[in-house]
């Protein structure tokens, strides 16, 4: 009898501890998410009235070339930044891991990690100054080796790669730290065993290190994918989607649609699109990551 009341009290206490967080997340995420889905079926007329239009808005957004252009831009930006960030981070982490002195390892590691603390707005503006077509440092350096000035952020072809460099700069340190932690958790005996078997350094890297870093590589691929898919700050602070829509990303378009043109229904369709895409990606991630690491 007394035991049961104790258990009941425990249950209530547990629920009460998690309740504030649960209530908050429901209010701030779950309810608005449902509302977003509902709003995507309604056309809002200026003045506040809204009318049910079924899938009409989906049809409108999904056949809009501006929308697909923004999807293409986002994916291009992703393709420029994510693989480069991960490969560079792996190289840097392997280099840092080879530094024998732990002190230097953490000092150099901190240098790579510094941009992670900088806001995306500030990062974008620093790079915009470096890219400046007239007075920028980059064109000046190129002029020293005889290359004519480029327009970078103001060029249709160069704007996405240029933005990608900013992304890589911001994210490199984070990815490096994840890889470094992964490398440090690999037991040294594996390498000793490989050495006894006569494996070369290259074989060690390909057959031992890379497979053991698989969880980190997958994890970072997903994180980079999500990060780049949601790109907004850098674009808003510098190009605002220009020139001529060449750097218009999905979130940038969503922002303009909702808060510049107040077409809330169409913005909600894009919101659902972004959510569905990232959900699909995360589910795929789970399928891969659920597989235990084979040691």
């Amino acid at each position, binding site marked *: 009898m007394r035991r049961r009341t104790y258990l009941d009290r*425990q249950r209530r*206490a*547990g*629920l009460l*501890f*998690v309740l504030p*967080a*649960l209530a908050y*997340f429901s209010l*701030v*995420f779950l*309810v*608005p*998410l449902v*509302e*977003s889905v509902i*709003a995507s079926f309604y056309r809002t007329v200026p003045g506040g009235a809204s009318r049910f239009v079924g899938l009409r808005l989906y049809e409108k957004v999904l056949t809009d070339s501006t929308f697909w252009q923004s999807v293409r831009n986002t994916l291009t930006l992703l393709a420029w930044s994510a693989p480069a960030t991960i490969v560079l981070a792996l190289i*840097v982490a392997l280099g840092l891991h*080879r530094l024998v002195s732990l002190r230097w390892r953490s000092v*150099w590691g*901190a*240098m*790579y*990690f*510094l*941009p*992670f*603390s*900088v*806001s*995306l*707005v*500030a*990062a974008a*503006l*620093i790079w915009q*100054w470096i890219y400046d077509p007239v007075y920028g*440092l980059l064109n*000046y350096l190129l002029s020293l080796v005889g290359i004519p000035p480029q327009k970078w952020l103001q060029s249709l072809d160069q704007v996405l790669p240029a933005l990608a460099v900013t992304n890589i700069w911001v994210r490199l*340190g984070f990815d490096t730290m*994840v890889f470094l*932690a992964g490398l440090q958790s690999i037991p040294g005996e594996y*390498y000793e065993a490989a*050495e006894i078997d006569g494996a070369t350094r290259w074989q060690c890297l390909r057959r031992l290190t890379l497979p053991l870093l698989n969880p980190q590589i997958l*994890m970072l691929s997903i*994180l980079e994918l999500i990060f780049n898919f*949601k790109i907004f*700050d850098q674009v*808003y*602070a*510098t190009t605002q989607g220009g020139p001529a829509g060449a750097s218009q990303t999905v979130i940038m378009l*969503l*922002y303009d649609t909702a808060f510049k043109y107040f077409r*809330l229904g169409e*913005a*909600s369709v894009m*919101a659902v699109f*972004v*959510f569905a895409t990232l959900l699909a990606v995360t589910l795929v*991630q789970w399928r891969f990551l659920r597989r235990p690491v084979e040691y």
Partner: protein
Amino acid sequence: MRRPPPLGRWLVVALVTAGALVVFFPLFWMAVTSLKTPPELQRVPLRLEPDRWTNLDNYREVFARQPFGRFLFNSALVASVSALSSALVSSLAGYGFAKFHFPGRQLFFFAIVGILMVPFQSVVVPLYLWVSRFGLLDTYLGILAPDLVSVFGVFLMRQAIEVVPSDYIHAARIDGAGELAIFWRVILPTVRPAVATLVIIKFMWTWNELFWPLVVVNSPPMKVVTLGLVSFTNMYFIEYNLVTAAAVLSILPILSIFLLGQKWIVRAVVMSGLKG
């Protein structure tokens, strides 16, 4: 492991160093630009160092053009409240999930982790409508609304509290301590490093946030520092000596916190990286 031959080792050191300098350089370039005068920016050939290392005119101009002190204050306030509130609510929830058995525990926890998948931009329009309905546009509470608790925090705190021996809790209970007292006096002190991690990370995230403040803030006195930075670019001709000075002002506080708490931030990164 075989020691790499000296030449190879020096090569690695050289490459790692070169890379670190390349990564660090944009920050250095920002700092020196903020000390230069407009004519210096346009001078050819380009000089690395400013004419006068003590030229703070750009900083004075930043404060003269915009209420930048106010921006910094707003950001500090919003980021502090968001960090402390996240730490408190996340620890409570983390404790509940780690040490109590109640119906729906697994379900609720997975629901919370599932929220990690919801991109903020997918809920921003309804959230904006709610905030405006409650008359919270252009208020601190409005800016804070989605940032008071972080999902990552609940996750982090559950992980940290799980390894606290349950004997501590039982002992305290036998001594007649109430559940809240146990949380406050037994649990929180033992997970101080995790709390520090969460406070630092959340402070940094809120400080650097642009999207939501952009949506809810209209009037200049309510702007946070990221919005203040953007306001220096809303002109046809961008004065980079001012932009970089404002950028330095916005980065310095967060950079000092970052350098002081680096140990903890790396912990958080490693956790998020390894545990997903």
